[in-house]
């Protein structure tokens, strides 16, 4: 019946006179960060902030139940708030008992779907009615960039809605079952934005619907209205995610097909073939892989250059991230006889960062190290303990190293240091550095001249440490 063991007291924290959480045990610190707060920083859990303020204004020890939400789960517990009078600065001691985490209780599936429909109805910027054959009966645009659609429909009324918009990812032609089209993406004539289509059946769903509510929900706000505050990135403000959301999905499949077919030819799966032809096929596959990698890099580039790009703040074990990156690149290292020297299992170095971004940076660094190291050499990855609230991880190779002059521009966009046929896009390190900075970190390189033993490149990723208990 009772679900929590050990002791009832789960976390203790101290707040100051401005309700800033000064110190906190781990669960509380994690919740504070998950709610978007800092440590130390103003208590970011609204439910707890109310209690602390209340106790402080009443100057009484209070004890109340509280429930909060950390983005994934519902957290419930029992909070006891004890104001600390006098010279301690009028803050409070916060004791949380019975810390419990429950997966967010979802309402019934149908109720949930209803809520989603309600959200879409509220946020649609163009809407209308379709008849049973999905022909547009009426449409009204609420956004200026949907007016052209409205005009097009009034010029040539009575056609199916798919004739007026350009569907993405849907290669089929009408007539299509409405369930296949509900939720699909499209672009509208005269609109730069991406739109999501909702078809909500009218009348009985089990039999053929008598018609549809037709909603067009934009995926992003109309640019020019909202981004004026990002003055430093004004050039990028009109940034539409062309590559990531439009080009990549369209190009990925054909490129994958090119690579797959080229590999089939190269390995002669379809029958005997002359040697030269398999070599050509190998080249085609390699070029396809380059294109594919390039596309990923460009999509990433576009993401990191979007104004307001931010990363999550979670606990990242750097040694663990390094081991995972090494696991992914192990085959490539083995193929060249390169030894990956990784940090020890128990070298716990906790950073506050986003795990997949750290992994991405490490994949880039270790991948580069493998690519530019001589065969049968060693790539060394080490974590470094925090000093002044920072932790770091370094990647060193035994390759030719980086000169002072190269180090100065190695993180530039499209910088390839004079190499032009090794398949790189010249974006990897640039993206890695942008990612590092987005996580309040820094990516640096030590040049050949300043390394004692005079050889190999040494890259170092510094990150803020995860606040310990």
């Amino acid at each position, binding site marked *: *019946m*009772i679900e929590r063991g050990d002791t*009832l007291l789960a976390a203790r924290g101290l707040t100051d006179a401005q309700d800033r959480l000064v110190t906190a045990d781990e669960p509380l610190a994690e919740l504070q960060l998950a709610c978007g707060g800092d440590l130390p920083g103003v208590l970011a859990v609204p439910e707890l902030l109310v209690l602390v303020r209340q106790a402080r204004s009443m100057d009484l020890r209070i004890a109340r139940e509280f429930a909060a939400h950390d983005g994934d789960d519902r957290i419930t517990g029992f909070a006891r708030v004890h104001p600390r009078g006098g010279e301690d600065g009028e803050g409070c001691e916060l004791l949380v008992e*019975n810390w419990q985490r429950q997966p967010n209780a979802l309402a019934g599936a149908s109720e949930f779907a209803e809520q989603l429909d309600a959200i879409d109805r509220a946020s649609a910027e163009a809407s209308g009615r379709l008849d049973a054959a999905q022909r547009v009966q009426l449409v009204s645009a609420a956004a200026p960039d949907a007016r052209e659609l409205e005009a097009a429909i009034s010029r040539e009324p009575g056609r199916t809605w798919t004739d007026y918009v350009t569907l993405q990812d849907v290669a089929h032609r009408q007539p299509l079952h409405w369930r296949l089209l509900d939720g699909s993406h499209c672009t509208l004539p005269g609109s730069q934005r991406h739109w999501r289509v909702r078809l909500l059946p009218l009348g009985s769903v089990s039999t053929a619907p008598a018609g549809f509510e037709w909603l067009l929900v934009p995926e992003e706000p109309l640019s020019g209205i909202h981004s004026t505050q990002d003055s430093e990135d004004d050039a990028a403000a009109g940034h539409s995610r062309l590559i990531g959301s439009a080009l990549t999905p369209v190009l990925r499949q054909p490129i994958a097909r090119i690579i797959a077919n080229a590999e089939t030819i190269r390995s002669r799966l379809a029958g005997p073939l002359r040697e030269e032809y398999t070599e050509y096929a190998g080249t085609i596959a390699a070029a396809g892989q380059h294109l594919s990698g390039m596309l990923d890099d460009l999509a990433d580039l576009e993401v990191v250059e979007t104004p307001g790009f931010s990363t999550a703040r979670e606990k990242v074990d750097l040694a663990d991230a390094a081991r995972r990156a090494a696991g992914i690149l192990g085959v490539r290292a083995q193929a060249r006889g390169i030894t990956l020297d990784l940090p020890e299992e128990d070298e716990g170095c906790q950073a506050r960062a986003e795990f997949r971004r750290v992994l991405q940076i490490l994949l880039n660094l270790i991948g580069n190290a493998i690519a530019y190291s001589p065969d049968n050499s060693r790539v060394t990855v080490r974590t470094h303990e925090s000093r002044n609230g920072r932790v770091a991880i370094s990647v060193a190779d035994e390759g030719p190293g980086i000169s002072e002059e190269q180090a100065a521009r190695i993180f530039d966009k499209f910088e390839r240091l004079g190499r032009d046929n090794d398949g790189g896009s010249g974006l990897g390190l640039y993206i890695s550095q942008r990612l590092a900075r987005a996580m309040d970190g820094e990516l640096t390189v030590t040049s050949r001249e300043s390394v004692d033993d005079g050889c190999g490149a040494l890259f170092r990723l510094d990150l803020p440490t995860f606040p310990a208990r």
Partner: protein
Amino acid sequence: MAEPATNISGELTSVERLLKEELARGDRSLRGVAPVLAHMLETSGHSLLSDAIVARVRGMLEHLSRQLLAAERAEVLGSTAHGEGDPPEAVDTLADRLGSDHVVLGHAYVLAMESHLAERLERRASLDPVLSPLLQELIASDQPAIAELAMATLAAQSRFVQSQRRMDMPLAELPAELFLSVMACWESVARGRGRGAVPKGAVERLKRSYDEGASRVGLLSRLVSAMGNGALAALELEHAGLALFASALAAVSRQPRDNAVIACHESQAARLALAFRAAGLDAQAIERQFLLLEPGIRVPEVIGQLAPDRAQAILARSEARVVDLDR
């Protein structure tokens, strides 16, 4: 109306006004007599207001008042002044002032009702008002922290039953908001007496010794919270006992505990049914609980079709002002 010509007629009009106001006040209290009297005669014993409850509420307000005056006396005269009684007029004045605060009055009423209901359950279903089977299980828990909390709750509950018999209401047992209301009443009466504010040291000492989490209601809700999802088990009145049951019902149906207590009175069957439904109980389970609490009341089957969050929304809209705590 003409201006009063002389000073004498000026005094006359003010006397006249005074008498008129006094008469109006008399009218108001007379108007109140009939409905209250009718209510008390109508269904003695089962009424929301019985003379036993009125007496208990009066006793509790007096006890509050005595504690405050004792604290004041101790501060002014030092600890030697214990045992010496306070003038009855002073006790009455403060008790009257406390009784005029509807929130304080409401809470006293709910406590009186809680012990009244507990006594009735003891008579009718031999339900121990202090130690219920669930509390016993919790005391025997293999987790020392829970066992300790349950033990403390048992002690607090036993003190509560005892103090209810004596018609007492210890200051430390008040919810924090009420504690402050009581302090405010105290200050206003002290100022009215013309002896200046209550001594700061007395207020400070009372505030320092206050800990909501150590009060009976605080301990009960901590215990319910410690049970986690097991708190649903506390919705079995016979198993949990009224005190724990009310706290659990309040927690799961997200309403003030005072409302949950009042819901157990037979005239509040709809409130109770809604609270059960808000807690997610189905029609059969609700029926079973009613059988114990109010055997005469039939629960309509359709209650099972009301969505729990709907039930909660309806509850939240109810205007239980007398017992409404802003929490």
